[in-house]
């Protein structure tokens, strides 16, 4: 066990996977002597650069991912550090349309064991916040994981590298260099499993990325008022752990989904569709809290109006838990 930030845990997971399996290699921009954008590959150049397994890429995202799909079909297990998730949009034919379809179209004869790392989210960077996650969820077969703790960062990265299909690892820039915590390198976490971050009996808040941290803070505020919120960290945005969310909401009686990504086609919409698609009428009310359908704005004041805050989450939870009599909700 050792204490790591999320960023350090991801690097450790990659290093362990590269040590264990020579078919793993890493390609990305500025991952050589520079150590990776925001130190995303710190130390890997020293350990694996001489073996040609840490490849500094030109600004050629479609080819970075396209070659990785080809290398993966041929037998490698590539990891592409795409820097920012907004660049995913430049890579969707090889990654989404084709790479994610290969196993299905070959009855599993050919697989694409590829991991794409991508940083996203509002935060210190003041730019490149777009996760493009709704776009990713549109492609069958493409898995998307989003850790929020150092342990999950380690375990989900290992799981993503082990997986035989393309996995996008979304790394939230406001969480990556947060507090260190103990990481057990032997602990496995399955892709597709959500986790209860904070137990509660009065309502369920399902969230991912930065929204998990904000939901936990909102839950503390709510607890002061005697409202106990259960916070579910989705962790995996594709596939979604609908069963865990449903069980939690059935127990607490209400579901609030807090999201940082665009509405319409993001995890919140996918979760609702999955819950409804399960069959019976939902036995609990659902409320979605997510940004408006606009590009991510730049000004700090607009950005904080755009993304749900701790207070927004707490207010929405209060309204959902104890609707004020006489108010009409649209």
């Amino acid at each position, binding site marked *: 066990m050792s204490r790591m930030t999320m960023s350090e845990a991801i690097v450790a997971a990659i290093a362990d996977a590269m040590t264990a399996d020579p078919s793993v290699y890493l390609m990305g921009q500025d991952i050589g002597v520079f150590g990776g954008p925001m130190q995303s590959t710190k130390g890997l150049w020293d350990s694996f650069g001489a073996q040609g397994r840490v490849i500094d890429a030109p600004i050629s*995202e479609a080819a970075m991912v396209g070659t990785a799909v080809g290398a993966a079909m041929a037998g490698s297990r590539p990891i592409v550090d795409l820097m920012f998730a907004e660049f995913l949009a430049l890579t969707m034919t090889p990654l989404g349309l084709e790479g994610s379809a290969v196993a299905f179209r070959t009855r599993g004869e050919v697989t694409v064991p590829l991991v794409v790392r991508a940083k996203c989210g509002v935060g210190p960077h003041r730019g490149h916040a777009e996760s493009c996650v709704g776009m990713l969820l549109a492609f069958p077969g493409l898995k998307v994981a989003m850790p929020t703790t150092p342990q999950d960062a380690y375990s989900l990265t290992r799981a993503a590298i082990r997986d035989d299909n393309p996995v996008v690892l979304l790394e939230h820039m406001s969480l990556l260099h947060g507090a260190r915590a103990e990481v057990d390198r032997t602990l496995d976490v399955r892709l597709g499993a959500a986790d209860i971050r904070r137990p509660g009996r009065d309502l369920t808040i399902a969230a991912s990325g930065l929204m998990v941290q904000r939901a936990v803070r909102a839950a503390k505020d709510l607890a002061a008022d005697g409202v106990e919120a259960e916070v579910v960290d989705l962790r995996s945005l594709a596939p979604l752990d609908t069963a865990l969310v449903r069980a939690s909401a059935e127990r607490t009686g209400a579901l609030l989904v807090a999201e940082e990504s665009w509405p319409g086609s993001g995890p919140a919409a996918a979760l609702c569709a999955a819950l409804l698609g399960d069959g019976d009428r939902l036995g609990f009310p659902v409320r979605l809290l997510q*940004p408006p359908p606009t590009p991510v704005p730049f*000004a700090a004041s607009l950005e904080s109006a755009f993304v749900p805050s701790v207070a927004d989450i707490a207010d929405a939870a209060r309204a959902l838990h104890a609707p004020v009599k006489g108010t009409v909700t649209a």
Partner: protein
Amino acid sequence: MTTTTTTITETGLWQAMVEARAFDQAMCRHNGHWHEARGEEAVFVGAFAELGPDDVVAPHFRGACAVALQRGSSPATLAAGVFGTDASSSGGHWRGDICPAPGPRSVGMFSGSLGTSVAYATGAALHLSRTSPGAVAVCGFGDGTANSGIVAESLNLAAMLGLPVVYVCQDNQYATSLPSAVALAGERVSDRARALGIPATDVDGNDVLAVRDAIGEAVARARAGAGPSFVHALTYRMGGHYMNDPETYRSPEEVAAWAERDPIARLQDQLVARGELTADDATAQVRAADERMEAIVAAAKGASDAALVRATSPYAEDLRSAS
């Protein structure tokens, strides 16, 4: 019809570079998110100096504010855009550093993704070829951006259609940490254009007169309907890629050697030698520009952004309901 003759004096070019640097250096002092352009002024000042109002510009992000300044934007408005405060011309909706003065004749980056603006400039040239014979589009992009697939695709389309567009590769020898000598396979990036039959020149990108002349020829060719051209301007990024770049990928000696070739000092020496500028006058003008930009940028940094949320905009309703 736009003019093809020289409209800016050499002293004017020197002043434009001095202004550009003054704004850039003030931003370095006040904005931790700035991308410094010191040392590259001859490329973006020389490339965009002689265009008319009908022409379309799509500058590289590093130096984009300087191009906007040169085309008449007010530095206070530009600075408000960079900080995202109330006076921002986009209403704070978008980044004023990489997209300073967007309009039908000026294209910027509308996301954080490099490369697409080269296609937009090419498309603007297609429009100009159909509607305003004699007008051109000039687009700048870095040596790193040159490796993006959409750049190759755009060049080929422009050659195929004979479009009035000038491509300017602002080669500052690095894409963040990756040297262009490593990343740009092949002898010269301009050979990529030559392979498509696009006339290409390689110029000293620290010599603003050489850049202006090379672009002038290319622009004249485009105005005459003779299709696209490519200018490769070799320069050097004197500062880090961003503020607080550790610069572990290059040596202080390399940086010092390029300091000797400063584009502003170089033209200044020529102007002084020719008696068109005195050393004292030059010093006074530089100081005046620095003081002016320092005051503007410092004031912009402290400005409020609170009114943006209430401002009328296509998104105001949505943003209000989200807050």
